[in-house]
């Protein structure tokens, strides 16, 4: 038996990476001076020489103090005050198909409850031995910690889960960013809430482009070729770019500091479908954000890193590029964003229009990117015999996501006007399955409108309409099930097949339908994982045209998953499997 089967014992460790100065009080370059009782706690809030604060981190570990927690390799000092860890997992919104949810899906979060307690200040106070008092008799651990760590917003919080005997480094780790705390309460509990790093994308936090400070110094006419703005300097704007003043866009070829602020020269007025017009002193000159024929992964990385402030180390860009090159190299993005817009909204639009999605993988501590595409690797089969826990499997239809007509608006008329106004678009592509609307099928139409400002051409918009219709013409199904921890490697973003008598075809045979996991949560840490998955059969399969001279179909058991064998006139292979189709 391995650790994750019989007799397994879960170990849970919480790590808080507290900002901590790497200097020693009063030692050069720290210029602070004071008696032992006046020394700081090497935190910024208590620092007496903040100009020389040398940011580093101090890892504080917390456990429940169970037997299995007592000796974890890699943890030398763990405070056994952990009461509970409650997670709310990431939920992917595949291609923003769920219109009642955020385009980015749900953010993962964790609530960690601690029991407050007296503390000796060992570990957290480098100068504890010199103090004239016994810190164990002064206030509680958390009340002191909060006072010494007032600036907490970028603290990293990690939750480790493993089994007895595993070293910390071998455990599953989920990473979050500090959000808030409550307590200590009357029962002596403190609850720390942390969220996934994509919380930084929330509308109030991240806007693209950034709001520009410049205001017209004087009135300008519709033909003016340069403008001067006050309340700004040249560093507030890129060397070349596009401005929006009122309802007009204009490009400039240079900008420089001038007597009253910054002057833009080489103006081309009335660009991007707008009309050159006069403007008044005091009007804002807003920098616009332009992308031209750019890769999806590059645009997402730019928005997340440069406008949402997510560190590049948290973006899995190398694998993003591989995913893009493999599954959607023909999709390029072009857009002009003329006013500060929530990065959340922009990413959601891109997700829908490029048939992709991003999510925070808290286990790998990376923002991941995936294109919705056919499968090129056979997904694992989860059966009701060997995997799915008793009483945990259920299905439901998602009729709100069915599509009988996909309307894709493209070629924006005026970039300064609303993109959700159908009158502001020059073209529309409609793909429809009218049979699906007939009385013998679903009996009503279901239209999905996509305002595709990122796809300004037939070549990009038409495939999106067709793809959307193909994937959602039938009502998608949602499956919920639980697996034992032995199978907890399956996680958000994975695709699996479910084999169960609860989902069969008209003949009673198991369908083994394909599902993409959109949410995974260890509802009982180390024991039970709960999944939510969306049917992905309609996403299809990627076939490989086989070389001339290849042998006949050898049967489903031995045929390569992507090998395209020739079927009979009914599209069926010798053992009844459906053959590849070119459509």
């Amino acid at each position, binding site marked *: 038996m391995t650790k*994750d*089967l*019989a*007799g*397994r*014992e*879960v170990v849970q460790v919480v790590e808080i990476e507290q900002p901590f100065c790497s200097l020693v009080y009063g030692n050069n370059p720290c210029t602070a001076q004071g008696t032992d009782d006046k020394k700081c706690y090497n935190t910024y809030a208590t620092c007496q020489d903040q100009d020389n604060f040398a940011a580093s981190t101090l890892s504080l570990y917390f456990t429940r*103090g*169970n*037997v*299995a927690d*007592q*000796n974890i390799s890699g943890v*030398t*000092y*763990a*405070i*056994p005050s952990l009461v509970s860890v409650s997670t709310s997992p990431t939920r992917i919104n595949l291609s923003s198909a769920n219109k009642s949810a955020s385009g980015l899906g749900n953010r993962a979060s964790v609530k960690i409850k601690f029991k407050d307690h007296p503390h*000796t200040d*060992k*570990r957290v106070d480098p100068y504890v031995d010199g103090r004239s008092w016994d810190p*164990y008799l002064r206030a509680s651990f958390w009340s002191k910690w909060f006072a010494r760590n007032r600036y907490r917003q970028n603290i990293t919080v990690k939750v480790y889960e493993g089994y007895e005997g595993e070293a910390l480094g071998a455990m599953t780790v989920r990473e979050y960013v500090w959000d808030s705390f409550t307590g200590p309460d009357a029962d002596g509990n403190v609850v720390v809430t942390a969220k996934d790093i994509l919380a930084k994308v929330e509308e109030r936090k991240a806007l693209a482009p950034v709001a520009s400070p410049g205001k017209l110094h004087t009135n300008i006419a519709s033909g003016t070729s340069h403008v001067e703005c006050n309340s700004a300097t040249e560093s507030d704007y890129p060397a070349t770019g596009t401005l929006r003043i009122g309802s007009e866009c204009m490009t400039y070829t240079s900008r420089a500091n001038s007597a009253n602020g910054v002057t833009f020269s080489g103006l081309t007025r009335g660009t991007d479908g707008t009309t050159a017009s006069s403007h008044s002193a005091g009007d804002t000159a807003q920098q616009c954000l332009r992308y031209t024929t750019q890769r999806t992964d590059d645009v997402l990385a730019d928005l997340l890193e440069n406008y949402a402030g997510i560190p590049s180390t948290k973006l899995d860009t190398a694998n993003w590029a591989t995913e893009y090159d493999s599954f959607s190299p023909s999709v390029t993005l072009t857009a002009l964003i003329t006013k500060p817009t929530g990065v959340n909204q922009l990413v959601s639009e891109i997700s829908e229009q490029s048939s992709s999605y991003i999510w925070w993988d808290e286990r790998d501590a990376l923002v991941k990117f995936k294109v919705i595409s056919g499968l090129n690797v056979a997904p694992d089969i989860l059966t*009701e*015999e*060997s*995997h*799915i*826990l*008793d*009483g*945990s*499997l259920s299905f439901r239809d998602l009729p709100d996501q069915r599509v009988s007509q996909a309307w894709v608006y493209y070629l924006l008329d005026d970039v300064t006007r609303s993109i959700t106004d159908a009158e502001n678009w020059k073209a529309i592509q409609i793909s429809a399955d009218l049979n699906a609307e007939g009385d013998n099928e679903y009996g009503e139409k279901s239209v999905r409108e996509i305002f595709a400002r990122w796809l300004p051409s037939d070549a990009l918009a038409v495939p999106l309409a067709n793809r959307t219709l193909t994937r959602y013409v039938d009502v998608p199904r949602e499956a919920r099930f639980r697996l*034992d*921890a*032995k199978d907890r490697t399956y996680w958000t973003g994975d695709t699996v097949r479910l084999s*169960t008598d609860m989902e069969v075809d008209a003949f009673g045979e198991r369908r083994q339908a394909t599902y993409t996991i959109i949410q995974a949560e260890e509802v*009982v840490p*180390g*024991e*039970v994982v709960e999944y939510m998955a969306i049917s992905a059969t309609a996403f299809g399969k990627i076939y490989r045209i086989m070389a001339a001279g290849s042998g006949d179909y050898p049967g489903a058991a031995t045929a390569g998953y992507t090998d395209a064998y020739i079927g009979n006139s009914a599209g069926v292979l010798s053992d009844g499997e459906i053959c590849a189709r070119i459509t």
Partner: protein
Amino acid sequence: MGVIFESNYTLPGSDQPLANARIAHANTWYAGGTIAASSTATDFFASGPNNSLTYEKWKPTSATATWETDLGSPKAIDYCAIAAHTMGTNGNTLEVEYWNGSAWAGVIPSTAIGDNMPVFCIFEPVTAQRWRISISNGTAPEIGVIRFGAAMQMPQAIYGGHSPLDYGRMTRSQSAYSMSGEFLGRSKQRGWLEASFDWTHLTRAWIDTYWKSFQKAAESEPFFIAWRPEDFSEVGYCQAERVPAPTSMSIGSYHSVNVAVTARAYD
């Protein structure tokens, strides 16, 4: 490992029989001594064993090591109690010594520690100022609590009905089965130990002399108990679930008392 006796231990004439429990509580041990360790590993604390917290530990940098407390003045000591240690896992031997003015003298000979159960070393009383434990063999252990003092001795033994502390395992277990009834796995979570100690026929005079002191100590800090050191080696590092109040037995001045405890589990 549990109870360890001094070699050729002779019960002092005024002591209670070894069938009676020995309790080491905060009003019997000498805290506040000056601590010195032969070495201390990074992120561990020489002073850690000198408080009751089990997670602030001392760990030497090698398996051959000493940890000493200088009590400031000579004290009569008849026990050394150790908890939250890994000497069993690390394969160590333990020796308890005192400074006789010219050399270290042993009260507990070098003893191999077989497991991580709390240790209650019992020896004839010695009055000395400096006391230490010596570790050897195996690999460097971690030790959370070390106490020296003069034990409280219960005047009565515990009779039938006691469930030994070491078997009072509060372990939660959970099995998983698939939809078709296949066994998929079983989880456990070892928590703490639970037990209850009952004494009867305690005289009011004894209670007035000893029990209040224990009550006050137990309100604040854990305590060690060896419930029947003569016959059983179980030792617990316990917390009283509630302040243990004696009850009159309506037989002369006799009282009975029940102490329900939770103890730190170790295996």
